[in-house]
């Protein structure tokens, strides 16, 4: 029995963390994006960070693990996941003065169940060579006959696009959004495929003249020796400046309901909202920091200021399911 218990505890020690100075993260964000920030946190606090990255299924895993889940916090790459965790009642409120001071109220839940950490804009890229900058372009334009055969985008089902469509539903209503989706589908130069970088590449190749893509990819591509020529082939436009404002999505963090290392988790959440971490989001990932006073990177700032869509973030989640259903109805990806 003693032997069994010993081996049991060894086994557990290997797998779950019961040691005090740790914090466990389930992350939808790729490790190479957040590792530098987490390393800084460990350096400052001595708290070890354990990371588990996956793009799908983490919410389901936490749900299954229930009270025994080792997850303390979840980092998401889009806003809807935050809401999904919240709706599944897998989060708990964090009452932190630091978080409340650092994160504007628009970017956190009224009940402190979730906190946004950085934002990104869904831009429309246009070919510098064939089109040039189009400052007045709107998302709605992409579905008009003038754009026939000129638009590229990734799968409509990708969270970034679903969020955009959800925002359209919130502004224009379901019926209009469906018509818009049909028009957009008819205008696509090719079936939705690849990721946001691939769309910029397609513009460079002359496959299409316009592409939907998040702003930070442009920064990332300018860093990459192979992709820099793709990035240089496009102009970045902030859509709907004269109407609703550009669609903005947020990355964020929640404290898991049964977090075993709650104190450390809150320390980490607070750290992520500080100037130092927010600066790293801005410089390293070309995202927009949520904390007021922290400047975006020089490159991002050079793209100009813009008006963001002021739609409550929770509306994006509200119309998420409708957005997916519309995508199916118009067979967008098929």
């Amino acid at each position, binding site marked *: 029995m003693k032997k069994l218990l010993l081996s*049991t*505890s060894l*086994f*557990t020690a*290997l*797998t*779950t*963390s*019961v040691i005090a100075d740790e914090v*466990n993260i389930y992350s939808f964000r*790729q*490790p*190479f994006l957040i590792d530098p920030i987490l390393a800084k946190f460990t350096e400052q606090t001595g708290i070890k960070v*354990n*990371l*588990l*990255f*996956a*793009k*799908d*299924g*983490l919410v*389901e*895993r936490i749900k*299954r*693990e*229930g*009270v*025994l*889940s*080792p997850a303390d916090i979840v980092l998401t790459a889009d806003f809807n996941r935050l809401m*999904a965790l919240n709706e*599944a009642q897998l989060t708990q409120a964090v009452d932190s003065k630091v978080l409340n001071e650092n994160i504007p109220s628009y970017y956190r839940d009224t009940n402190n169940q979730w906190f946004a950490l950085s934002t990104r804009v869904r831009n429309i890229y246009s070919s510098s060579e064939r089109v040039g900058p189009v400052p007045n372009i709107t998302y709605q334009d992409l579905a008009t006959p003038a754009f026939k055969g000129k638009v590229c985008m990734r*799968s409509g*089902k990708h*969270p970034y696009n*679903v969020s955009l469509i959800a925002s359209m539903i919130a502004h224009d209503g379901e019926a209009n959004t469906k018509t818009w989706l049909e028009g957009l589908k008819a205008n696509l130069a*090719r*079936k*939705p*495929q*690849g*990721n946001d*970088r691939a769309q910029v*590449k397609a513009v*460079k*190749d*002359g*496959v299409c003249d316009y592409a939907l893509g998040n702003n930070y990819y442009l920064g990332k591509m300018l860093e*990459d020796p*192979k992709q820099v020529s793709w990035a240089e082939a496009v102009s970045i436009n902030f859509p709907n400046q004269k109407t609703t404002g550009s669609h903005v999505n947020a990355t964020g963090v929640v404290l898991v309901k049964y977090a075993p290392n709650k104190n450390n988790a809150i320390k980490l959440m607070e750290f992520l909202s500080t100037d130092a971490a927010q600066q790293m989001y801005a410089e390293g990932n070309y995202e927009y920091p949520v904390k007021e006073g922290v400047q975006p990177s020089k490159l991002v700032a050079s793209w100009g200021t813009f008006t963001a869509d002021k739609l409550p973030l929770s509306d994006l989640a509200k119309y*998420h*399911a409708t957005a*997916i*259903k519309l995508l*199916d*109805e118009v*067979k967008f*990806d*098929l």
Partner: protein
Amino acid sequence: MKLNLTSNIYKLLPLAVTTLLFVPILALVISAFSIDDSGSFTHLIDTVLMDYSINTLLLIVAVICFSFIFAMPVAWFIACCDFPGRTILQWALMLPLALPPYIVAIVYTDLLDYSGPVQQLLRSMMGWQQMSDYYFPDIRTLFGAAVILSLALYPYLYLLLRGAFLGQSGGLFQAARSLGLSPVQAFFRVSLPLSRSALAVGISLIAMETLGDFATVNYFAVSTLTTAVYDTWLQLGSLTTAAKISSLMLLILVILISLENYSRRKQKIYQRSGATYTELRFKLTGWKKWSVMGYAWLLLFCAFILPLAILCYYAWHYFAESLTDELWRYTQNSFYLAMIVATIALIIALVVNFYQRLSPGFAAKSCIRLSSLGYAVPGTVVAIAVLIPFTKVDLWLNELLVNYGFSQIGLFFSGSLFILVVGYLVRFSAIAVGSIDSSLAQVSPSLDQASRSLGQSAAQTIRRINLPLIRKGMLTAFILVLIEAMKELPTALLLRPFNFETLATYVYQFVSDEMIEYAALPALLIVLMGLLPFIIVNRLLEKSS
């Protein structure tokens, strides 16, 4: 008493392993029947389910056809003919198995899309300016996905068919020839029908793998039923609908496999002693020799040499960036995990197959079928399916401990490597079960009967007669599972414990952002770690024969 115990173990063990592999699938099927108020299933039926089903069916049929076209000729020529390079090709044609299909997909897309070197060259040679000036087939289509999957999967069929052709008694073929059939006629009327069991196992492995694939079809923007499972589950949060679709996929698969089995229920083929093709290989000459060699080498080039060369090129150019301290640790993780999984899968395969051999019947047949089902389920779904029962067990176990005054032990099963191993087993045992099944099928029961009538027990017969005769099949099963486990991504991604990376999960974080260059070195390691054991085993086999 002792007899009782052993006979009980021999009956209980197969049931136990089948339960282990089937319970997660069962949990999935059960959740398909729970109440779902999201209405997402009816929504799917109203909208895209038909398109997804047709795509799935087309894809499976296309992959089977292409794999057959790739595998069948080379399997036969290598088993039955002699030509220069045959001994190298014999094992080299297996190599594509070590390449993860999604990597091959990315490599070929880079190569063949508009800005890839092939079209660039064409443009500069022909003076074309833009896309509309010429036609070039789009690789990101169902057709493209089918070709790439076939290039990655044909080795299964090749391996099984080659084994079957080798095992067939050459006398039958000779008899057919002497009765006036041409070699081609004799092949289609004697050799191929005799290989039906291997053909069936190979095709069902390929069909299951295709059904379970998500990464490749997703990359090629082909929407299949797996897409529907992902959408409903991970986007709409409806486990019930996702489980319904998965169950539907499984049902179709079970029906197809049962039909095939039923249609050859009276067919029994065993290997006989006497001349095999080994002594009767045709020596190919002239244009026949050249075309056979050309076909085999072209296949090997497209399926393995070219993608590998491109990976090497990337790895070389990004070597400094990719060579990280952790790489060696991830390699070890991947390799040990794969070894453990392959060993257990082999044991499971032996247990259920010998159960079937010793007491054939419904129970044994069910064990074989049920333990193989997980192969057709997409990795992410397997992962959640495995979590369902084992998190329950963990919660229950902790409660029990607390009730008896002990402290909680946390997620003992579902938070450790244990669940990762089970996830892999659910997914890959089918490969081992299938390989053992097909090699055991060729060992005539009269050998068993002779052994038993000479006073040997069932266990002695297995040990002294059967196991030595299927040694090759066992090694094959082991290696195939090992290679699959090296490549496996979605199950690992979702079930791995903290800070545990495999090469595949490490590759994924780059590949998912289309940064194949950074992923090339670890991807090469996946291939290498899969191939080393394969080559070693092959050398051993060649020496012993």
